[in-house]
């Protein structure tokens, strides 16, 4: 999907699409990471959509508990354009842990409707403007624990009980 087979110049394409937006770009293994500040996330998403990246493959959250922030990564790619379909772009932004709110991009990329609901229940991050922000997989008393945050620690039970 990426690496040597990649023919399209993703960096050039991104710099053309995101002209005038404050961003930083870095080449990672398998994808190109584009970091934007939280204010211009929506604008960047719209411009990437217009540049041909028509769907989000996954929305992941990285929990940097010592820095006190979450990093949201929208891995975007293209179905319709054949030359873009070889590349992956990770549009990423950071948000403070104590004010965990993100703008909903589900009207830009419709495949985010379910992924934002899953992030909402697993991390407790609210998405402003989401049309139907309900729990997806978890029961309410499990979702209250926010189980994928770093501060949630599963109580370890030994497989073999020690003799008393």
């Amino acid at each position, binding site marked *: 999907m990426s690496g040597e087979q990649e023919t399209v110049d993703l960096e050039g394409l991104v710099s053309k699409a995101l002209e005038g937006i404050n961003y930083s770009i870095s080449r990672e293994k398998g994808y190109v990471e584009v970091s934007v500040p939280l204010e211009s996330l929506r604008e960047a998403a719209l411009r990437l959509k217009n540049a041909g990246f028509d769907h989000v493959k996954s929305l992941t959250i990285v929990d940097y508990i010592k820095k006190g922030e979450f990093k949201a990564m929208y891995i975007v790619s293209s179905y319709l354009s054949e030359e873009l379909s070889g590349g992956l772009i990770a549009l990423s932004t950071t948000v403070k842990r104590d004010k965990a709110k993100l703008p909903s991009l589900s009207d830009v990329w419709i495949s985010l409707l379910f992924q934002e609901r899953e992030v909402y229940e697993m991390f407790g991050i609210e998405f402003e403007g989401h049309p139907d922000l309900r729990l997806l*997989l*978890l*029961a*309410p*008393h*499990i979702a209250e*624990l926010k*189980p994928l945050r770093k501060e*949630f620690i*599963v*109580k*370890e*039970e030994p*497989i073999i009980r020690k003799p008393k």
Partner: protein
Amino acid sequence: MSKMEEAKIYVGNIDESARKARELLLGKMKLGRLVDWATAFSLWPVHLTTSCCSTEFAATWSPRFDAEQYGALPWVGSRQTNMIIIEGTVTTKMACALRITWEQMPPPKFVIAMGACSLDGGIFYNSYNIVKPWQVVPVDVYLPGCPPRPETVARAIVTLQRKIREKSIAGKWVEEGWRPDMKYVKPKEDVCSWWRG
């Protein structure tokens, strides 16, 4: 009592005749043993597919292994069945569905926990969203494996049949109205509390 007397035909008052016939039948054989025998060869599991063990469950009733020869046949609804084979992982939400299905089945009813996930969590051991089936329903036979082979499922059915006949579980259940040997019939916690809100 001679054979001539046994072959008597009762006529006249139907209540009186029925009472006499019942005394004759129950004097010969314990009704509980008949119930045990009948229940052991009509264990009908409900389709409660929770995870990937269901493929082996399906293969058990396929022509090659043919578990129908033991008198067990998967049936459609919980009202027409008397056995649950828990096919794998039980999550918090599925625990509620499992309990409701178990409540809906008419007694005498039995539970087989199939696969490593339903024994102690399996690969999801120590997870936040796993419920062990013995916390929700009383389990008769545990069936290890990841997933168990169809022979193992057939063996579990035969084991359950032997257990029913030797311990006379079904007969006692019918006579006494509740199962005598099962301690944890009711779950300690309300598994559907999240659903009622």
